[in-house]
């Protein structure tokens, strides 16, 4: 008895040194509001998606997705704390409630939706798996990769796709599985493997991390569909809706031509779609449990989807990714959001 008591006591003492956030069983939104910030799970470092600088300031498209949610809830895109997670940890971290949402280039699959207790709130990047090779090996198509050694990151769908792809083509391969993308790049640049496989967007990011990016190239093949998007826990529909609709608002804003620069002016717009989007008309916010002007805050403070894309991964960034299928549906892409109505 004394032991148990002391252990509890000891723990309490230790925990005293750190702000232990606790809340009653409540909805995620209530929890988030009470904490005063959103806890968002991201990768520990992937340029363009989520990457901390030396001061711990995070940037990236996944990071902006979190910031948009924070802007919607608090009207402050800075009210987010980021938890860097490895691929292995991410679902458990979300399931366990350590984070409120996961925005970590996570692929939407049936299994994950159905049996992990998760809900995908949408897609913020349509991706597909590709291959990054060292130019030296003289390969220009993935079908020539028989017998190759492949570096992958552990705990990802890429591990499964890779295996499927090679099996379907009757080819052999040797997988080297690393924990983090840093280690994967390090392994690749140390020459441990011929090929690095990952989502194509990540390949661009990883390539930019190489000492000599010119020595490597991305093969044209895309071997899978990888819709990436933010994830929340099952069983809290309100929160699920919030994340889903914040993302939709950003996509709709681009479609409607609302940007962070003109968001204030657009408040005066008489387009009813814009009015509903920015909250000048209707009570869209209230339906989600958010302030009426949440759309305005999101667009004004974080930007629309296009801005978010261009800022982080677009052609003018080191990653230099074209919009491709991530263009709006009106421009030949598949980015299509349900209407705010």
């Amino acid at each position, binding site marked *: 008895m004394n032991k148990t008591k002391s252990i509890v006591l000891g723990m309490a003492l230790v925990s005293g040194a750190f702000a232990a956030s606790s809340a009653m069983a409540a909805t995620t939104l209530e929890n988030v509001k009470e904490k005063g910030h959103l806890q968002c799970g991201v990768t520990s470092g992937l340029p363009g998606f989520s990457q901390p600088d030396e001061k711990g300031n995070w940037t990236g498209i996944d990071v902006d997705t979190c910031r948009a949610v924070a802007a919607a809830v608090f009207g402050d895109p800075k009210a987010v704390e980021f938890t860097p997670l490895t691929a*292995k940890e991410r*679902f458990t971290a979300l399931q366990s409630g350590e984070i409120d949402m996961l925005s970590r280039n996570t692929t939407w699959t049936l299994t994950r939706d159905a049996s*992990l207790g998760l809900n995908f709130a949408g897609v913020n990047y349509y991706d597909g798996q590709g291959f990054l090779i060292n130019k030296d090996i003289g390969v220009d198509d993935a079908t020539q990769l028989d017998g190759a050694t492949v570096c992958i990151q552990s705990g990802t769908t890429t591990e*499964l796709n890779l295996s499927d792809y*090679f099996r379907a083509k009757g080819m052999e391969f040797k997988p080297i599985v690393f*924990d983090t993308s840093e280690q994967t790049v390090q392994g690749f640049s140390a020459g441990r493997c011929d090929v690095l496989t990952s989502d194509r967007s990540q390949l661009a990011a990883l390539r930019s991390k190489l000492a000599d990016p010119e020595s490597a190239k991305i093969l044209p093949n895309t071997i899978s569909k990888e819709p990436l998007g933010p994830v929340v826990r099952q069983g809290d529909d309100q929160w699920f809706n919030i994340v889903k609709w914040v993302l939709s608002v950003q996509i709709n804003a681009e479609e409607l031509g609302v940007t962070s620069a003109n968001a204030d002016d657009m408040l005066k717009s008489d387009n009813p779609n814009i009015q509903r989007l920015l909250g000048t008309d209707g009570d869209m916010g209230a339906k989600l449990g958010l302030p009426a002007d949440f759309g305005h805050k999101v667009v004004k403070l974080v930007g629309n989807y296009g801005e978010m894309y261009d800022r982080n991964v677009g052609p003018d960034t080191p990653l230099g990714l074209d919009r491709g299928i991530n263009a709006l549906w009106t421009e030949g892409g598949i980015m299509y959001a349900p209407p705010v109505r």
Partner: protein
Amino acid sequence: MKKQTVDSKPAGPKPWYDPRVRSLFFQVVAIAAVFWAGWTLVENTLSNMESRGISTGFGFLEETAGFGIIMSLVPYDATMSYGRTFWVGLTNTLLVSVMGIIAATLLGFLIGVARLSSNWLVAKVSLFYIEVIRNIPLLLQIFFWYFAVLGALPSPRQSIEVGGTMFLNNRGLYVPEPLTQDGFGLVWGALLVAIAAVVCIRIWAKKRQLATGQIFPTFKVGVAILVLLPVLAYFVAGSPLEWEVPALKGFNFGGGITIIPELAALWLALSLYTASFIAEIVRSGILSVSKGQTEASKALGLSNGLTLRLVVIPQAMRVIIPPLTSQYLNLAKNSSLATAIGYPDLVAVFMGTTLNQTGQAVEVVAITMAVYLTISLSISLFMNIYNRAVAIKER
């Protein structure tokens, strides 16, 4: 004591002053507290999992895994089940642990003895090795061996060659694989005969010693027989062994046996690190044998070598064994750092990829911990048995 009180039972102390009652009370409370804590934990976990829609149970072990693993001692491909990935991970963990224990023991004893060498240079180099290696985190050493050394090795096409049969490059060390042909049975037979012969020689040598006092060099002769007889049989049978020599196919070498850099780096780092601790254990073990023992042995006319072999080492061993056991345990546990460099051990494969694909953290972690518990208890048990065998009887 007065007579009348002898008959009646002495009135015991009030129950709460009775140490037995107190002790019982404390224990009941303790066990209740533990059960309560355990029950709360399980209850919380179950309700949390239910409310979060996480699937439970061990059914996932039957499902198809669908991912590749670079190295496995048991047959494996991506169409097999998660249960199989468990075995792959487990055997890989055991492989690196056993290899590490053997190498660390040999190296550790060597360095521990070298530390006490009368050769100044050898002693100082050993000291330097011990003090440097054991004061640097193991994980760092693993990274170093893996990334720094890997980076220094050439690509497959520029492999370092040894006689055109062994190749070293940044994909690993490739050595020829022996494939036995018809007639190799003779070699096995010869080996059996050699073993039998050695046993016979040992018995004979003992008998001869009993009779004449001559000491026969059993060890040297035994080794010679064990080597020569099978070699002889090998040639008599017409060299019935083909070597599959690794060859460059496409990007990589194929054929032969591959020792992947992950295994090599992990093994190297684990052995070097643990050896530095074992060396200190061996040194203090040898120093713990009192000077009187060596003096007595010398006074009896035993040479330095015999003194070491017959008097010092047997006594040093009983001091060495218990801390050596905990070093073995540490090594087995430290092999889990494999996950940091992509060696497919239990933690990397099962608690890593499998856990992630299935999402059943509780089951997977529980299985993993149970495995380590079993490994630890087995090593302890084995070493305890050995320890009891060498223990010294005291009055």
